[in-house]
């Protein structure tokens, strides 16, 4: 079968820095083709060249058999190449149909009067093709993230898309929504639509994709058929070396209780949540998205008001009603949303790293530059943050390195209880392992860690105990040294024996 998209010998450099050194990539009609590589390997650059955001320095791109030089994503779209971005481009205050036809509304000739019913009927047609039941009249803002994403796919379909580029499509979806998305992808395949699937989640790639292409440091490493390869080979191709076990050995000794939560309640969010975590221990927190895991942690951290509930630190009851108080008690909270809640993006790596610890590097409110730089240097080395200079804006770093900056800024406060919310989301395999190792090192020094994660292998691989939350309630606490498996966790997370 002739490929729909064929890219050959693509080269691209930014200011002498070679980002792509001769990459080949092809997508056949009706194929789901995974594009993998560590952060900074050149995946986004390659896709931006394909869709006309960047110009290539060398190489050829053919779409549907003819060579193309797109100048903008609009031109690529006209040839049937659409991108489903990680940050969704929907307008929450408009209806589903209005979103699908935004900018191309069906109107009564030149009057500009919108033919609402016609739009809604056609929107319905596309949604049915995708096998989902969403009313075209519903406001998009009232839909879940998963459904909003499907609206974007429907929009691409209405534009006659022949190839969809999906960037981390499952990052914000619940397990169930992922299943629905996979069904949608399946029906797209049957219609001959091809998909470029960019993700760090290995399990998903092996479930849904037909082939996989791997980039490393801007080099094309190879394309494999999924049935002909395996997990370890892919990881090795990606990082260029064996990284060994995905999860480092947990070898810390567990000590006394650090944090105990009793009867934490906020109507509509959580009910009677009680648990504890000990020094040197990692407590994994599993549950579906929206189960209230992050909200519970925000309450403990004083960032959200609670109705009832007691918090004990080192067996002493404490009042925490603001993040400042939590920090004073040795808590640190690494939020799941590093861009919105973790970092000040336009500030430098240095400024972000010392934000919570400015008292340590200043006297009478005035910075001591040398102290600050020494501390920053130390953190950058300790966490192996890859940045050419501490003065670089933090938003120019890769996801994994941004996450390390967030962790780094809290390590500066020397916390004794560390809450990590989705610590490896959007982080590549190599950096993931490094983050796990940092967690291990911290527990070795007696820090208690609470880790929220939606990736069950990660929860099972890193936790000493696993707490499962379902609809704001603790439905199970497993000792991970016993026989725990993904199914047991999912059963508890969905709150039923037979779901």
């Amino acid at each position, binding site marked *: 079968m002739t490929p729909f998209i064929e890219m050959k010998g693509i080269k691209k450099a930014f200011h002498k820095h070679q980002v792509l050194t001769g990459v080949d990539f092809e997508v056949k009609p009706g194929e789901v083709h995974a594009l993998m590589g560590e952060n900074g390997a050149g995946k986004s650059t390659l896709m931006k060249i394909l869709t006309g955001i960047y110009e290539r320095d060398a190489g050829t791109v053919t779409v549907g058999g003819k060579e193309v030089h797109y100048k903008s994503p609009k031109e690529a779209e006209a040839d049937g190449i659409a991108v489903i971005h990680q940050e969704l481009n929907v307008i929450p205050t408009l209806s589903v149909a209005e979103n699908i036809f935004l900018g191309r509304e069906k109107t009564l000739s030149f009057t500009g009067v919108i033919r609402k019913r016609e739009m809604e009927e056609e929107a319905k047609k596309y949604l049915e093709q995708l096998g989902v039941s969403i009313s075209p009249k519903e406001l998009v803002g009232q839909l879940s993230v998963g459904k909003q994403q499907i609206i974007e796919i429907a929009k691409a379909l209405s534009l006659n898309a022949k190839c969809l580029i999906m960037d981390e499509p499952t990052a914000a979806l619940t397990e169930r929504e992922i299943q629905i998305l996979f069904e949608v992808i399946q029906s797209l395949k049957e219609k001959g639509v091809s998909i470029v699937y960019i993700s760090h989640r290995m399990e998903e790639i092996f479930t849904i994709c037909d082939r996989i292409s791997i980039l490393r440091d801007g080099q094309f490493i190879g394309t494999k058929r999924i049935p002909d390869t395996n997990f370890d080979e892919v990881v090795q191709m990606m990082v260029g070396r064996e990284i060994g076990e995905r999860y480092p050995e947990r070898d810390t000794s567990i000590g006394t209780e650090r944090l105990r939560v009793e009867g934490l309640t906020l109507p509509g969010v959580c009910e009677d949540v009680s648990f504890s975590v000990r020094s040197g221990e990692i407590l994994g927190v599993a549950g579906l998205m929206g189960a209230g895991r992050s909200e519970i942690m925000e309450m403990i951290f004083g*960032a959200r008001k609670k109705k009832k509930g007691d918090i004990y630190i080192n067996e002493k009851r404490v009042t925490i009603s603001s993040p*400042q108080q939590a920090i004073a008690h040795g808590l640190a909270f690494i939020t799941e949303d590093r861009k919105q809640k973790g970092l*000040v993006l*336009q*500030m430098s790596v240095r*400024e972000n790293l010392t*934000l*919570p610890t400015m008292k340590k590097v200043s006297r009478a409110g005035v*910075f001591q*530059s040398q102290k600050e730089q020494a501390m920053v240097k130390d953190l950058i080395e300790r966490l192996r943050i890859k940045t050419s200079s501490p003065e670089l804006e933090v938003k120019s770093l890769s996801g994994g390195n941004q996450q390390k900056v967030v962790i780094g800024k809290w390590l500066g406060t020397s916390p004794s209880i560390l809450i990590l919310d989705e610590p490896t989301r959007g982080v590549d395999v190599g950096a993931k392992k490094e983050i796990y190792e940092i967690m291990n090192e911290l527990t070795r020094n007696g820090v208690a860690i609470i880790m929220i994660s939606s990736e069950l292998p990660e929860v099972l691989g890193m936790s000493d105990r696993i707490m499962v939350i379902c609809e704001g309630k603790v439905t199970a606490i497993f000792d991970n040294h016993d026989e725990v498996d993904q199914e047991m966790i999912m059963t508890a997370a969905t709150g039923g024996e037979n779901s």
Partner: protein
Amino acid sequence: MKRAIEFDVKKLGPLIGFILLCIVLSFLSDNFLTVNNWLNILRQVSINSLIAFGMTFVILTGGIDLSVGSVLAFSSALTAGMMASGMDGMMAMMIGLMAGVLMGALNGVIITKGKVAPFIATLATMTIFRGATLVYTEGRPITGFSDQIAFQMIGRGYFFGIPVPVVLMIVIFFILMFVLRKTTFGRHTYAIGGNEEASRLTGLHVDRLKIWVYALTGGLSALAGIILTSRLNSAQPTAGTAYELDAIAAVVLGGTSLSGGRGWIFGTFVGALIIGVLNNGLNLLNVSSFYQQVIKGGVILLAVILDRRKEA
């Protein structure tokens, strides 16, 4: 201290514009490049600069303060009123200043504790403070208070040949530049404007800092008001009307982002100078005051458009 002299070339746009403007005006008018004229420009600029310095902090946090002109008027009237009733000049000025700080802090409290958008909160207090001024003055100028030396100095005095308001402006400029660049207060100001939620979760005292920032702006507006009162030797209840617009214009001309988190006080200083030089130059060239407004607005628009293009 390498970083102090390490200038970001991209940020120099306003300064280049300012220099170009000066070169053009020096060709158009013989009187422009004289020491006297420059002392005059600087003295005129000092009032707007002081307000704009405070406005820079407010805008860096992602806020806005529309009440500065009314704060100026109230502090001016209060200072004059106290002196008219026989109070010592120094004492009266302190009270005027404190009133400004308190009015600013009140803005901050309404915005943070009352969770009112800064635009709305200060729009309301702008009217309230103006009304309070009219009530206090009964709508009439306050004049005829005994001319005291400290009070005279602040608006009309000279320090080694330089007008005192100009000296004050320059000293405060350097202090605030230091605060923004070298202190935790400055760093927190940028952080809160850059990402308020992240700052809150990092344990910064977001509300407290914002209240201080508005208090600072209130205090600087009051100082500007006292200088103005001394210069005119009277307090006008309508003083400072629309001053917030010139202050915001100076901040924006200087390259500070209205969405917060990005900007610098040096830019604001240059922005205030551009407005001052433009006013002065157009007067020297006998341009009618109606056209002056059109030209001023056009320059602001042009500067901002050029600034945006640079960023793209």
